[in-house]
């Protein structure tokens, strides 16, 4: 086990963590703020990657390609939102339906191919994994830091506005929200659009970073997103109370996740076993509050009686 090999891999892990962290902010919006479990993201992140890659190789401006990915991601969220509110399908199932449909859509976008190469040699990409260890302004860590700060700033503003407040209220208490004149269905659709827009944007950045878009690049994205949200909360919930800092915690959660992955790979874990490990770790973290209430609660009761 060569420690240098691990150290060499760390900058890459950090930049990957930052890209997936941006995606995880999308998950945070639906899962934590609106209290909706949205599985669209597994599809919409690949959609974002596919849209951006196809636009860029067809000569579109890179920034416009990012914007297009964001808008198409919003459309994905809109579809899930309609399934949920207008068709009355449970949120989880709505997301699964859109995600499944997106698999075909994504193949169509990429001209019926499972992946599209996006080489930094040919196109003026915004970021690439090749510069992960470069001490320069084009280092993906720096570039992602800018994206993340802008995203957090905009979301901080948005969730402080009247509309944003009404969306937070929708997540906190649907009955109360309707009683206060808030159209909860509209807000749920809006949040799914916003979240999937961000997810697709991160997909567009990921495709550039790794040099290709792949129809399977989103498999398990929701679980990675949840891992980032939960790790961020476990580590920072006591110190980060401000909304902006909570979003930052999600990013740091994703970075921690990728650093840990890097370490276990370095320790000799088979790459194929990664998703199994991720699922187990997230299951344990999701179980923690339930177990805490169940077992610690029981203990306190016994104490009280004794």
């Amino acid at each position: 086990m060569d420690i240098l090999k691990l150290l060499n891999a760390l900058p890459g892990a950090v930049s990957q963590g930052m890209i997936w962290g941006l995606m995880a902010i999308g998950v945070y919006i639906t899962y934590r703020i609106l209290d909706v479990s949205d599985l669209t993201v597994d599809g919409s992140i690949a959609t974002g990657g596919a849209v951006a890659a196809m636009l860029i190789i067809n000569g579109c401006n890179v920034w416009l390609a990012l914007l297009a990915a964001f808008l198409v991601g919003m459309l994905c969220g809109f579809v899930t939102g309609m399934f949920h509110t207008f068709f009355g399908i449970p949120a989880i199932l709505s997301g699964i339906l859109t995600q499944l449909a997106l698999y075909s859509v994504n193949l169509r976008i990429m001209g019926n191919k499972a992946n599209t190469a996006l080489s930094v040699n040919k196109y003026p990409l915004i970021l690439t994994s090749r510069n992960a260890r470069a001490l320069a302004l084009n280092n993906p860590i720096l570039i992602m830091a800018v994206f993340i700060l802008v995203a957090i700033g905009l979301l901080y503003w948005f969730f402080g506005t009247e509309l944003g407040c009404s969306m937070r209220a929708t997540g906190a208490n649907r009955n109360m929200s309707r009683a206060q004149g808030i159209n909860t269905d509209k807000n749920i659709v809006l949040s799914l659009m916003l979240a999937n827009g961000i997810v697709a944007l991160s997909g567009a950045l990921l495709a550039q970073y790794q040099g290709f878009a792949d129809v399977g690049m989103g498999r398990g994205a929701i679980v990675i997103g949840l891992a980032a949200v939960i790790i961020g909360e476990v580590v920072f919930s006591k110190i980060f109370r401000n909304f902006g800092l909570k979003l930052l915690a999600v990013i740091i959660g994703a970075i921690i996740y990728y650093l840990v992955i890097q370490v276990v790979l370095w320790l000799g874990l088979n790459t194929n076993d990664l998703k199994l490990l991720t699922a187990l770790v997230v299951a344990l973290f999701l179980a923690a509050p339930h177990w805490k209430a169940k077992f610690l609660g029981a203990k306190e009761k016994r104490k009280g009686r004794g």
Partner: protein
Amino acid sequence: MLRIEHIAKTFNPGTITEKRALTDVHLHLKPGDFVTVIGGNGAGKSTMLNAVAGVFPVDHGTIAIDGVDVTHLPEHKRAAFLGRVFQDPMTGTAATMNIEENMALAMRRGERRGLRWGISAMERRMYQEQLSMLGLGLENRMSSKVGLLSGGQRQALTLLMATLRTPKLLLLDEHTAALDPKTAAKVLELSDKIIAQQKLTALMITHNMTDALAYGNRLIMMHEGRIVVDVEGEQKKRLTREDLMSLFGKAAGKELDGDKLLLS
């Protein structure tokens, strides 16, 4: 102010759990009417209030508030006319948001919510003043999460939010039932004070016959999805528990089993 014309509602029609919750409810409220609503479990009291609030569509009949037919308006649109306080103190407020944010949400009831900042400094001062009138010390805890408040505090806050913008109609759905007797009495006093001050039209469901007699200028009693007793004015003032029982017995067509039916 409120015109309910022959509304009916059956839940789960055609199934084994079919429940005829409202059979034929007809009720007109004059501006300033403060009506207490009593009746046994399953009499249709909450169903009637929820039908007015638009929680579900009614099968027949029409509902109009201040001359506006709201029968087909969704719940969030009807909210513009209504102030609502629920039985469960958890229902009326957003626990994860703080006191001033909750009030700001209520302040914008019936308005378009755009990209202006969610709460202004001027509002904040106004909320502080309003809160101090509750006498619960909440004016010093404006940025506390509502989830940290007691049930009584949350109900008082919900009441304040319901009346922050003067509603055409205030709906109180057993809003003191989940509180301890002392707190319940306080919240009830507060409700009465606010209704009098703002000259509100109000419907208040209660399980407590004494409260139903003590408050309001009009009393209705429901049974099996209908209004079976409706007394107001001087007649209501003179009403006693015994009168109520015999009225109910006559209307429902059978002897009333003491307090059980009313207070169960």
